[in-house]
């Protein structure tokens, strides 16, 4: 019964935030904070107590660390099927952590309609937790689409307007339309899969475990896989479909950016690992070279565009595109090591991107601009913040000792055996990432000062948020074994599916 509560807690907490707003302005913040702390606490407790050697794997009945199943829509064989394994657990802990931080980082920033803001924030996180737990394809789609609406409101109502007056609404609409339209393509693919299975077996079901056994003709499998891939590619984001991301990030409030970069992008990677690869292993392996080339394209394109930005949040947004390119390569390389590296990189990127967005939000609160041409020389005017930024910029460029290094290194190391050329080219992406990361630091914090006077220092809340992230990133860089152990079983299962697809003689299905 713990799993439905993981989803319900944010939803209920969000409603409470809205209701108590009329009594007291600051009460919603405390409720939201305790909701997220509760989520994080349950996540950590599950981590400590669960057995994460259990995960779905081909050829056997799927085992889960924790499972919940209840009939929902009988007509279509749709169940409320939630389950937890190592991968979902890691993602949920990340969600809880970033949830706490996104409440904290909007403590001062959001002053209008506090209750409604936190309602939206909580509902996004609830939807994300649902995505990470759902094992019924209908339920997965349900949460996948549901988290868009509060995110839309978050950007449209509390975002920063750039040049034009309506730009934040346009950014929010662009985000919504991109993800919703691609989501519908995924719905068509889901239904296609369900009806093919119905045709073969006479059982109408949306259940993941049953659909894993579906027998698909190669052409159909490829098409269905593409349907899933497009939806995930938009959220990932993979380069030709990425253009909503910089806009959404630039206009979103800090908490929105933190959630977007830290968690929402991870839902796409999670979806690929959980659904696209195991459901369509043969087609995915056929498609892998294309996916990896798209990953390479993303690495370089993201890095180059990142370098060219003047808006600090757009710079970080494009750097996300670049980092997620590595994750994509790791996912489609098919090697277990690379898959595990992708998971570490997802977490590390979640932490470092969140920290960079929080820092740029703090910068914005002081300078009221995100334009790096108007910054410069901040090192002498601000204590703490520039040094912390330097740390996270270094983490983002993959400095050894941080989680990002472990992630990128393991992805490249694991992929090398099967696709050496991709790895050789991708390695140059690391060079570019140090170029744009250091360029950001240089433009914003060094050089001549643009104005005189010392700015307000960071208060305890602001420093501690960032320090916690820094600590975790270092911890992940030095002791990544815990994460590797937790995700091992899941990745092993995925790896076996792909392996079976690669060796046609031994069919595990």
């Amino acid at each position, binding site marked *: 019964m713990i799993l439905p509560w993981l989803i319900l807690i944010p939803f209920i907490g969000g409603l409470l935030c809205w209701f108590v707003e009329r009594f007291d302005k600051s009460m919603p913040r405390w409720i939201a904070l305790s909701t997220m702390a509760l989520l994080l606490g349950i996540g950590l407790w599950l981590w400590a107590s669960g057995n994460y050697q259990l995960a779905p794997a081909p050829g056997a009945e799927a085992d889960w660390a924790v499972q919940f199943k209840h009939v929902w829509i009988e*007509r*279509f064989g749709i169940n409320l099927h939630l389950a937890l394994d190592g991968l979902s657990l890691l993602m949920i802990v990340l969600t809880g952590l970033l949830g706490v931080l996104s409440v904290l980082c909007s403590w001062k920033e959001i002053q209008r309609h506090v209750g409604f803001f936190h309602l939206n924030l909580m509902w996004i996180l609830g939807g994300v937790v649902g995505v990470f737990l759902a094992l019924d394809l209908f339920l997965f789609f349900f949460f996948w*689409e549901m988290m868009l609406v509060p995110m839309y*409101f978050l950007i449209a109502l509390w975002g920063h307007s750039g040049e034009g007056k309506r730009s934040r609404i346009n950014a929010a609409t662009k985000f919504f339309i991109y993800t919703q*339209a691609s989501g519908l*393509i995924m719905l*068509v693919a889901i239904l296609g899969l369900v009806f093919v299975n119905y045709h073969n077996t006479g059982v109408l079901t949306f259940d993941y475990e049953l659909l894993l056994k579906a027998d698909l003709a190669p052409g159909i499998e490829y098409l269905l896989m593409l349907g899933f891939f497009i939806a995930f590619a938009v959220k990932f984001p993979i380069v030709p479909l990425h253009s909503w991301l910089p806009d959404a990030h630039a206009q979103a409030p800090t908490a929105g950016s933190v959630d977007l970069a830290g968690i929402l992008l991870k839902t796409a990677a999670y979806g690929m690992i959980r659904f696209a690869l195991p459901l369509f292993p043969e087609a995915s392996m056929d498609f892998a070279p294309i996916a990896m080339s798209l990953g390479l394209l993303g690495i370089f394109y993201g890095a180059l565009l990142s370098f060219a930005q003047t808006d600090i949040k757009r710079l970080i947004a494009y750097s996300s595109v670049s980092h997620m390119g590595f994750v994509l390569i790791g996912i489609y390389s098919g090697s277990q090591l690379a898959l595990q590296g992708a998971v570490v990189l997802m977490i590390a990127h979640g932490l470092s991107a969140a920290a960079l967005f929080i820092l740029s939000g703090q910068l914005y609160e002081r300078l009221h601009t995100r334009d790096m041409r108007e910054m410069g020389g901040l090192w002498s005017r601000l204590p703490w913040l520039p040094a912390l930024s330097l740390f996270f910029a270094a983490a983002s460029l993959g400095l050894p000792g941080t989680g990002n290094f472990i992630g990128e290194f393991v992805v490249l190391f694991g992929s090398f055996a099967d696709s050496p050329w991709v790895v050789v080219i991708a390695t140059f992406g690391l060079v570019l990432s140090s170029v744009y990361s250091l360029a950001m630091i240089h433009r914003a914090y060094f050089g001549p000062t643009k104005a005189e006077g010392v700015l307000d220092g960071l208060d305890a809340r602001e420093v501690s948020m960032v320090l916690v992230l820094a600590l975790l990133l270092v911890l992940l860089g030095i002791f990544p074994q815990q994460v590797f152990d937790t995700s091992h079983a899941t990745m092993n299962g995925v790896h076996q599916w792909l392996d079976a697809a690669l060796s046609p003689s031994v069919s595990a299905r």
Partner: protein
Amino acid sequence: MQSTQQYIIALLPLLITGATAIAVMLAIAWRRHYGLTFIVTSAGLTLALLSIVPALQVAPLDVTPMLRLDAFAYFYSALVLVATLACVTLAHAYLGEADSEGFPGNREELFLLLALSAAGGLVLVSTQHLAGLFIGLELLSVPVYGLVAYAFFNRRSLEAGVKYMVLSGAGSAFMLFGMALLYAESGSLGFAGIGASLAAQGSSLLVQAGIGMLLVGLGFKLSLAPFHLWTPDVYEGAPAPVAAFLATVSKVAVFAVLLRLYQLSPATSGGWLNDALTLIAIASILMGNLLALNQSNIKRLLGYSSIAHFGYLLVALIASKGLAVEAIGVYLVTYLLTTLGAFGVVSLMSSPYKGRDADALYEYRGLFWRRPYLTAVLTVMMLSLAGIPLTAGFIGKFYVIASGVQSQLWWLLGTLIIGSAVGLFYYLRVVVTLYLVEPGLHRHDAPSNWGQRAGGIMLLAISVLAFFLGVYPQPLLDLVQHAGLAVL
């Protein structure tokens, strides 16, 4: 041989609705009393709705060759009656309280016309005969001419009434001619008879022309592209509760008869007709959504969006097997709920009657910070129209896509996806407008006690239902499954 008593029980919903119309007429003639008329109308319609329960015991039953009263007919009858009841309560709020400032003309006849039109809808959903189709359609449409022009002292309302009358008359004429051609060729007016005789002799040019003309007529009523031009003007001009009636009852009833015709006479399905319907569906989805993009009037916007929604429904109609009949039932229920909700908010915002409806989008700016619950209703409705999870609209859209996938209609599905993406843009525009704060704007608000009136309570119930069905649709699906169309 069935006894007369059974026939009467089977016909009860229709009989009670007809009797309600007469009672309302007599009540008005006896003494003009606004509250009394409202009570008589709603009591009569509620009674008719309840009488469906005993009537279901004797179903299915053929009453004269014209009407076939089966579960399908009763399901859609219930929809028609519920929607009419909702419109009646909305109209009550809209026209204003009896003794206060409000609508300057006579108020009572609106209820009479609504009851009459509902009777037409009931005939339409249960007919299996071209003559019944025509009678039902005219009984449904003719009172609507009066309803649309009910605020006749308002130029736009009058214009809309005349426009609707002329175009609807033209549509009926087309349809009548089409029926004549079909009869000339097949010698039968029953749906099944036409199907059988045409299947035997194959379709000649005359039959094709007849079917084509029938389609034109129905296309007018359903405002499918390219016969949609009247829709935005009429929706804009008609008083808001009437627009709600037009968008729900008249469309649902006509679609039900189209579905029955399509299912019962196989000759009308297949071949070029399917291609024609496919083109119409694609055109409706694209035109409806694209034209809605730049609307700043919420009633026009809803008009265009209803064009698109009937395009989506055609996808299921074309699929015509497997899930299709069920999908249409579910989609129509969700469409009915959301459209009633959306027009309901417009009605309440404009009530009591203030000369013109509050239909410009800027009048809704920042509504959330003044009327949070009313805004929540409209938000749920807009998201439901856009088909976002947690609302009934999502289940409807899911069903339509499922039936499309099942029948492998890839082109239509592609159009549907593009249409939904375009549609999102304008639905979201409405939604975000509700939450924007713009100081110093003209404030056009619903009365602050809107939630305690009949219209408001009805609206809240509808939105709760729309939310509930989005989360737990199983009861609805069971209901629709039992209301399947038994193909003869």
